């Protein structure tokens, strides 16, 4: 009896939570829908030249068309694949290197200006030299994404490790923690909140770098789609591309990066308002 009562209470609570979520989603969507209505109204009222700004229906049609002939999927696929490869390599090298540099305080203070200098340059500033080293195409773009993620994450990992209180590390060492235990149970967890923040910032730079690099250096991808549409004054394709880019980044940031950051900061008792 007691347990069933509890269950009922729990499910009522859950459904309340669901309702709250749905309500906030609706409140989130209403202003955006309003924006679309205003857009449609203004374009039809003032008879805006489609070369200046497209109508809602033409963007919708361009969207349907590119979905059905498969080009949109190909562009999105190419962009996401580059982001995935570049980010993975960047994380795989950046996190260990950042932690290694941060372990000894003197070494950390030696390397941090260097890594910081390069994290300032990370991303777009590398496009010219990347295209010269790797030629136009996959290599150059992935390299730009890689170094946007790599330097920012390495810098943050370094900061994170060097901000772990020395007492904690001494305590672990005096309790007999080996090198492996030290890395995986003290240094990595301690630096994790910083690393995750670094990943979010780095991905932000990488995403912009991707779009810029694709405008310059390839024949496939979302940036390329936008930039070629410009040559033909196809504003409906440009606006479609912008909406797709916005939605993709929102999805990436809200569904992947923000939850990751929330989980780590909460777990580490550093809840931010």
């Amino acid at each position: 009896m007691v347990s069933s009562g509890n269950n009922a209470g729990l499910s009522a609570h859950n459904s309340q939570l669901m309702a709250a979520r749905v309500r906030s989603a609706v409140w989130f969507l209403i202003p955006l829908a309003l924006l679309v209505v205003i857009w449609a109204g203004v374009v039809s009222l003032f008879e805006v030249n489609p070369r200046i700004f497209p109508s809602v229906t033409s963007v919708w049609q361009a969207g349907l068309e590119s979905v059905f002939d498969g080009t949109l999927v190909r562009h999105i696929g190419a962009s996401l694949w580059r982001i995935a490869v570049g980010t993975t390599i960047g994380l795989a090298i950046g996190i260990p290197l950042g932690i290694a540099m941060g372990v000894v305080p003197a070494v950390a203070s030696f390397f941090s200006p260097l890594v910081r200098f390069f994290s300032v340059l990370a991303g777009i500033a590398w496009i010219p030299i990347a295209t010269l080293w790797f030629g136009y195409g996959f290599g150059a773009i992935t390299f730009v994404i890689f170094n946007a993620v790599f330097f920012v994450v390495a810098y943050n990992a370094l900061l994170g490790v060097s901000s772990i209180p020395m007492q904690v590390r001494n305590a672990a060492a005096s309790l007999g923690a080996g090198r492996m235990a030290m890395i995986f149970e003290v240094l990595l967890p301690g630096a994790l909140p910083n690393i995750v923040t670094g990943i979010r910032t780095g991905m932000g730079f990488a995403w912009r770098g991707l779009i810029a690099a694709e405008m310059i250096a390839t024949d496939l991808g979302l940036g390329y789609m936008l930039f070629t549409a410009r040559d033909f004054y196809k504003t409906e394709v440009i606006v479609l591309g912008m909406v797709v880019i916005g939605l993709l980044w929102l999805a990436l940031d809200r569904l992947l990066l923000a939850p990751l950051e929330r989980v780590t900061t909460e777990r580490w008792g550093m809840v931010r308002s």
Partner: protein
Amino acid sequence: MAWVRLHQRWPNLAASLPFVPLVFSWWLTAWLEVFPRAFFPGPGDVVLSMISLIYKGILPEYLLDSVTRLVVGASTGVAIAIPLGVLIGMSRRANTVLWPPLLFFQAVGDIAWLPILLIWFGFGLTTMTFVIVYTVLFPVVLNTVLGIRSINPDLLRAARSLGASQARMIWEVVLPGALPNIMTGLRNGLGYGWRALIAAEIIVGTSGIGFLMFDARRAGSVVEIMLGMIVLGLLWYVVDAWILAPIERATGERWGMVTR
């Protein structure tokens, strides 16, 4: 230990020392010709090209162009962003209406606007200024709102019960309270704006450091690309270390929120 002491006494010297072995190993790699010289020139070549570009007056002119664009764009962006942030932070109604579009347009990103801006304004200053204003705007607005939300409500109530008008509330409680966050937003915004400027200069391509680099790329001159990257890095270092960090530190200390 000596290193740590040096770090405390002359932080600027200590911060530049690590670059000595870096430049040396760069020089060594280039001198040994590990990579073909055309693809990987040494520091000497870069210094020579810097001297020649300064002598021709190209480098100072481009640098001035880039910095002017950044300053004009950033100050316009801040001038729009702070009032907008205060509006959204103070009014629930403005928040429900403006917050979702704000998040969406932030996600669209500055660089994705370039193609349509080129159609609207052509290849020119307006396009580049628009991109920088757009980039700086969002981090400052979002952080202003965050800062206003984090003000202790007791302070707001106290000021109001002491009879502060709405204008004085904003001027003497809300804005000062949100200032540390606004500074953080400005710093983030400039970080993004900086990259947007380089991208815009590469793509729009009339003048500026980004253009210098991409023009050099077309001519296949790695020396000038590297020069451009070094100038960009140094410039940001100067702006960040000498202007932004001290302001941020000053507001943080003044407001008793030193985090070190």
